[in-house]
């Protein structure tokens, strides 16, 4: 029988995969993808609890999280484009100066 704990564990695993991607990868695009994965894991928690307490407010919150995720992606990718145009690199360990 599938319980809330199953969903919490799945969400924890997905979140940790996202954390690993953020900490391990050098490519800033894959780091943004990993942040997206972490937000998805959090959404999964919200939906599971919304189902558990039988209240749709949790799903409304997921709606707002998705809005913020879309905003984060658009702005992050715009910054990556500006960064690549100035420094010719997308690796985070080579981006080590404030001056372009």
């Amino acid at each position, binding site marked *: 029988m599938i319980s809330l704990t199953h969903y*919490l564990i799945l969400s924890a695993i997905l979140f940790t995969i996202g954390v*690993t991607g953020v900490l391990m990868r050098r490519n800033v695009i894959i780091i943004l993808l990993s942040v997206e994965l972490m937000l998805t894991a959090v959404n999964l928690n919200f939906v599971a609890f*919304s189902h558990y307490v039988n209240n749709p*407010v949790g799903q409304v919150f*997921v709606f707002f999280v998705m809005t913020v995720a*879309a905003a984060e992606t658009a*702005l992050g990718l715009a910054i990556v*484009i500006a960064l690549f145009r100035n420094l010719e690199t997308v690796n985070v*360990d080579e981006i080590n100066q404030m001056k372009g």
Partner: protein
Amino acid sequence: MGLYDFMFYYLAAVAVITALLAVSRPNPVHAVLFLVPCFFHVAGIFVLLQAEFLAVIQILVPAGALMVLYLFVVFLFNLHEIKGTRATHRQAALAGIVAAAIVILLVVLAVNSLFPVPFPEQAQGMAADNTAAVGGELFTKFLFPFELASLVLLAVMFGAMVLARREDSE
């Protein structure tokens, strides 16, 4: 094992495997393409949790629009120089330890939590019409945050255009 259990384990396994592949592939195009089936299977899990509206949104927005945006940006770059170099950061070993600690902590917390094992019976209420329930909450109790979200998206649209604009086009 019933159909519900089987579907949960199938969707969870595929979501985890594709997520692992997405963060471990050296090629960013492969990473983006592996994240699309991952988001599709998370949408399937939303259906299992009777959140049909969010399942459709999950396919349309993160798996559809955002992944297309990522692909466009990846194609914009010259990837030849990125190939051949190592894909992981210097701090990868430390990052692995931190990630293992986080997953152990979260799983222990989830297993030892006080939530009773089965889901309560979902006969009435939100199970009847999920979209109407979510929309009813969104346009009454959460109307102000909803309008604020549209303002955020407007600001992001102008911000992204200003940030990605070429400097020499003045």
